[in-house]
């Protein structure tokens, strides 16, 4: 092993996040690896199916889906920061979407009011989960699992009570614009915006906000410290109980947002909102380098993780596989993408770290 490279090992270049231990070269950063894999897949799929670059049928819908799943990932990430899990992500989203739908249906409220209601309801349920966890000391996995069951029943009872079926037939003003329009529809004179759906900026603002929270803010950092070591956090003067409840409330709030956006994308506030959120909620952050053990999160990585899964899904859809082939390929591509990332990391470690 070359000694020169080691003695002159650069004092770690400015690092993006706290997840990469010091001393690894920039290209060992998992986010870079993900980005490379994503770009490679996009090139591959576009070469195989030029319609992958079709704006209206591929790119725009993909962005809209991506926005939802990035936020779903962040909802899980919020509690992963503590080393907790939130298995009630699906139903927190469903209940929040119900609350928004009810607001529109009964109060004929404007779009933003329903959004606000969804966020508040989500945050409250999250806070409830956090409170149960901190007061009883029962594992978050179990608490949120049970909560999910309970909410599942509640959702169906609520819809049965408030609607004649399982969905609200509401259409608040602005919903269609949010659903169908892209920035391309808004022009200042001859210059029109890019073909980006209007839900994307909402997601983007959320991503930045959560990123700032965990990177810069005291509260976010204290959540991470709590996740890193609960006892050390408590003995360092961090109000751990409050931080745990806040992280769960944040998770609930993001579930609310995800549920709202999905309802917008799907065009209806219905009981099935959120049904498919659970696995993607874990996949995106963990692909992005967030630890299940807590203490380190990567917001950007979560967005990239969500992007990767969307790209794989979309590309393979375009290639029109049979169901079994499709599932097998999704799994294999995921494994390959992850292994590539790992290979890169090992190479980097060979050059520097050996534990």
């Amino acid at each position, binding site marked *: 092993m070359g000694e020169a490279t080691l003695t002159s090992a650069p004092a770690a270049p400015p690092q993006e996040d706290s997840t990469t231990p010091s001393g690894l070269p920039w290209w060992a950063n998992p986010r870079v690896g993900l980005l490379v894999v994503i770009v490679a897949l996009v090139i591959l799929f576009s070469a195989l*199916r030029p*319609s*992958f670059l*079709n*704006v*209206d*049928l*591929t790119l725009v*819908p993909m962005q809209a*889906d991506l926005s*939802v799943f990035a936020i779903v990932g962040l909802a899980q990430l919020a509690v992963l920061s503590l080393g907790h899990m939130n298995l009630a992500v699906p139903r927190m989203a469903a209940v929040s979407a119900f609350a928004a739908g009810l607001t529109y249906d009964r109060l004929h409220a404007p779009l933003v009011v329903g959004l606000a209601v969804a966020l508040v309801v989500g945050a409250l349920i999250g806070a409830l989960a956090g409170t149960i966890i901190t007061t009883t000391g029962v594992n978050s996995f179990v608490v949120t699992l049970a909560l999910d069951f309970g909410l599942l029943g509640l*959702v*169906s009872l609520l*819809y049965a009570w408030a609607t004649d*079926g*399982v*969905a609200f*037939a509401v259409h608040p003003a602005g919903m269609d614009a949010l*659903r*169908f329009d892209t920035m*391309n529809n808004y022009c200042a004179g001859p210059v029109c915006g890019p*073909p980006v759906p209007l839900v994307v900026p909402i997601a983007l603002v959320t991503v930045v906000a959560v990123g700032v929270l965990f990177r810069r803010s005291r509260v976010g950092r204290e959540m991470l410290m709590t996740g890193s070591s609960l006892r050390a956090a408590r003995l360092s003067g961090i109000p751990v109980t409050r931080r745990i409840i806040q992280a769960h409330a944040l998770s609930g709030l993001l579930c609310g947002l995800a549920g709202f956006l*999905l309802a917008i*994308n*799907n*065009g*209806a506030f*219905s*009981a*099935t909102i959120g*049904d*498919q959120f659970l696995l993607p909620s874990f996949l995106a952050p963990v692909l992005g380098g967030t630890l299940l053990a807590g203490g380190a999160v990567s917001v950007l990585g979560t967005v990239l993780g969500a992007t990767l899964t969307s790209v794989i*899904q*979309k590309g393979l*859809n*375009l290639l*029109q*596989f*049979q*169901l079994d082939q*499709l599932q097998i390929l999704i799994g294999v591509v995921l494994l390959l993408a992850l292994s590539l990332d790992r290979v890169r990391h090992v190479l980097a470690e060979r050059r520097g770290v050996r534990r």
Partner: protein
Amino acid sequence: SKNTTASGNDATSALTADQVKIALVPGGPHPYFQPWKAAGQQAKQEFGLGDVTFNETSGWDQTKQNDVLKSLAAQGYNAFGIFGVSPDNINSTFQDLTRQGFQVASIASCPAGTTDDASFCLATDVEAAAYKAAKAAIAAMGGQGNLVHLTGNKVDSNTQRRMDGVQKAVDETNGKVKLVQTITDIDIDLQTAQRSVADLLAARGTDIQGIVNTAYNPAVASAAAVKQSGLPIKVVAIDDDPTILAGIKDGSVAATVAQNPVGQATVGSYALMKLAEGCTMTTPGVTIDSGSFVVSSDNVDSYDQERQAETTKLRQDFDDKYLSCS
């Protein structure tokens, strides 16, 4: 920019049959949809269509189904026969596709509520089918006793309609038949259905006389469990999967209500082709019953002819009533 979309989505210009590429998209993998594959190919041959494909990769997820539909559109498919995963939001999906100029039909399941944003809905009238099934069960029970209804996802408007249909048949007996229990959410997988049926039979096997199924896995499970337990319970199943037909032949299933998947796929493709060729619906969004057929040991060998006749009639109805072609 709208001009980059796939070919054939210009709503105004009529296509010729060989330009029509039809995608039949069920909600997910399910035995019910399997006949669509062959029926679609048959339609392609018969009508000289550009292409007919069958894609069941939605996996019972509306978001994924939307994704699959758009992918197919990007691939050049321009007419869609869709079983909506979620009847409550499927209209939005239809709007999306029609906005881009594609032909859309809802097949085998209609949207919830009173409006259908697809050109037409060609489906089993689930309420009527459930009604017929319950009737058949009541008849098999000898017109009195306790009945149990086993069905699928409760937060699905079709399930609600099925429950209504069964209730209606029970109500008509003026209290002679009691609907003692409705068990939902056991169509997820076969084990769940088997377990629930076992628990049901253990709990009140001796005081029920009939089981009416309006979902596939419970039907398979209850037929087997009743047969094995030896209880004198009449089971009415759904669909005409080989497993269930075998049950009818050996007597473990009193009757089943067969639907008409082949007719849905063929006639649906036919109508989609006509629409793409420039025809219009006389009543856009009309709901058309594709028929349901009570099958018992009496007609197990002959019901398919009845069904084929229904299919022929359906096609004729489209030409005569539903379509207006210049």
